[in-house]
């Protein structure tokens, strides 16, 4: 298979394009889907190609989530985009009570396939209301898939698979991933929903991430390698359904597992994973589990505090050091690069 290096956001756009073309029932909707920024480039110019299937919307999140459900139960396939997960909370009633349950409530007679794209993120002083992750709020509710692609490959595969689902699917996209590059598979590449992926195999410690935290895990694996620690990195890819087996297998092998959240770990995604590992491997001697997440406070705008709040690769290495009972020499030099506190990369200049 010929692979190309492409940008994550570009791959989303191509995949949306591909599905819009293939399936006339697909409609794209959301504030700004047809604007000059095109949702971080992910929908750029698609409205020109699919004139009657790409819709800008009024700022009425609760309403339009219900409208999308109405489309869906009538045979359309809506894709809603929220530029910040926080905006979607206005529609949380529709999500929890209606969208997640419509199929059930109708005794299975009506299905309501749809995709809800929730963009999460961090950085550049966005502050308390524009930088949450909140995956757990959506993952707790039966009746939906919750996906967290971390690479151009999985974002292609998971989007494509979501378009085949009868269930509604939530896709979390981290803003800092939109600008990342990676191998891009062919247009009709599919990723099975509900499967985790081993991105890097290793033997000493297991690092579990999803969405952007995968990048943190990979970064820290690189640092750990310098200290001769072989880390296995697992990308969950799907939070609901959850592929616990891949994790259990790895944990059995390494006996040391760190699970990294994008947001708060307290009552977070990592808790379920940690709990399942512990419950199912309770006979395993010397199993050690740790979780990392953001500080348990709203996220501050100022960089001086933001850098203390977000998990970063260095934190993961420090946790590994402790777990493995090691003393890494000159570890400090791998400390957080200054820009990383509030910039995805050095070239980022704001304002959003």
């Amino acid at each position: 298979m010929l692979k190309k290096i492409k940008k994550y956001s570009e791959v989303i756009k191509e995949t949306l394009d591909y599905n819009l073309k293939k399936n006339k029932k697909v409609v794209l909707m959301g504030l700004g889907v047809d604007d000059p920024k095109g949702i971080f480039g992910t929908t750029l110019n698609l409205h020109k190609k699919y004139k009657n299937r790409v819709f800008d919307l009024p700022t009425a999140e609760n309403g339009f989530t219900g409208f999308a459900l109405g489309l869906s139960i009538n045979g359309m396939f809506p894709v809603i985009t929220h530029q910040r997960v926080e905006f979607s909370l206005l529609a949380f009633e529709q999500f929890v009570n209606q969208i997640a349950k419509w199929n059930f409530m109708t005794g299975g007679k009506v299905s309501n396939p749809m995709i809800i794209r929730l963009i999460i993120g961090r950085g550049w002083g966005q502050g308390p209301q524009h930088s949450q992750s909140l995956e757990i709020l959506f993952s707790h509710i039966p009746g939906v898939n919750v996906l967290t692609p971390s690479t151009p490959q999985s974002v292609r595969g998971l989007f494509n698979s979501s378009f085949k689902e009868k269930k509604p699917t939530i896709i979390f996209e981290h803003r800092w991933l939109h600008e990342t590059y990676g191998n891009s598979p062919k247009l009709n590449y599919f990723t099975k929903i509900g499967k985790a992926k081993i991105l890097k195999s290793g033997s000493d410690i297991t690092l579990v991430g999803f969405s952007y935290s995968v990048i943190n895990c990979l970064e820290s694996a690189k640092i750990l390698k310098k200290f001769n620690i072989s880390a296995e990195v697992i990308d969950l890819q799907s939070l609901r359904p959850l592929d616990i087996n891949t994790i259990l297998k790895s944990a059995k092998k390494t006996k040391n597992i760190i699970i990294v959240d994008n947001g708060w770990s307290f009552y977070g995604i990592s808790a379920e994973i940690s709990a399942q590992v512990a419950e199912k491997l309770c006979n395993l001697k010397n199993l050690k589990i740790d979780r990392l997440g953001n500080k348990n406070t709203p996220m501050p705008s100022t960089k001086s505090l933001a850098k203390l709040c977000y998990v970063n690769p260095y934190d993961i290495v420090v946790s590994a050091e402790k777990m493995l009972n090691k003393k890494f020499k000159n570890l400090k030099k791998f400390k957080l690069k200054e820009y990383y506190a509030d910039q995805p990369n050095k070239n980022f200049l704001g304002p959003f």
Partner: protein
Amino acid sequence: MISKKIQIKLLEEMLKIRLTEEMIAKKYYEQKMRCPIHLSIGQEATATGVCFGLKDSDKVFSAHRSHAHYIAKGGSIKSLLSELHGKISGCAKGLGGSMHLLDLNKGFSGAVPIVGSSIPIATGTAWANKLKKLNDLVIIFLGDGATEEGVFFESLDFASLKKLKILFVCENNFFSVYSPIDKRQSKKRNLCKIANSLGIKSTFIDGNDIENIYLKTKQIKKYIKKNSEPFFLLLNTFRYIEHCGPNNDDHLKYRNINTIKFWEKKCPIVNYQKKLIKRKILDHKKLTKLKKKIFNTLIKSFKYAEEQNFPTKKILNEFIDA
């Protein structure tokens, strides 16, 4: 203006709703129907008048108080009663209960008990019709309480923007549970004007006047289709028994005795029966026969519902997802 046949039919439809609801109320204490029920006794004219003559491809949505709308749209009584009994033959296989009715064959698309939450879903259905270039109508029934939800506003706003073929029908029974409308809404508030201010035409009609509702909505439906525009219809009416449950609760005194009497006199069914008798379209014998017919079907339908099986674990397993 209205043919004799239709006059009889209008009465029959209302009677069907009334008798079904009354029998549900009567049998509720046997504890075989184990779910909350919000009966529509007193509010039969709104459902009947609005739904009369709709095609199966026209779609109706409702909320917690949906029995009347379901029946008026032609929903199967057997499936309704089965649902209340929690049986597999229920319209939602017993999973939903009384607050989640649907009958897809008849175009009764759904009902949900979160106040206001079916309004955008109905609006989205009208949008789907537009995108699919269908000429069907969508009708959403909502209470006076539901007009307080922001999503009511958002839905009207969008229907106006997109010129959707949807009829918003507000059944104002002056109460939200025990709460009278004047505790919740300013006296200067005007629902028809709210619709107008968003660019939607509106009309107010006495909600107990079956013929007027039937005739005016017939025109309204034409208007909607012709102009490809939403419409807002306000109907004042009254429920005779408690908000939720099978009993009269007038002893609680949350509704003024004079108000209750006023509305009792306006009973849509009693008055229409009288009218048809006066018009010689009906006599007492015929009326008794009509009621008997409905009654017998109901007895059979209840028997059917009671005899059906409960859903089993298998159906649950289809939905367990983690």
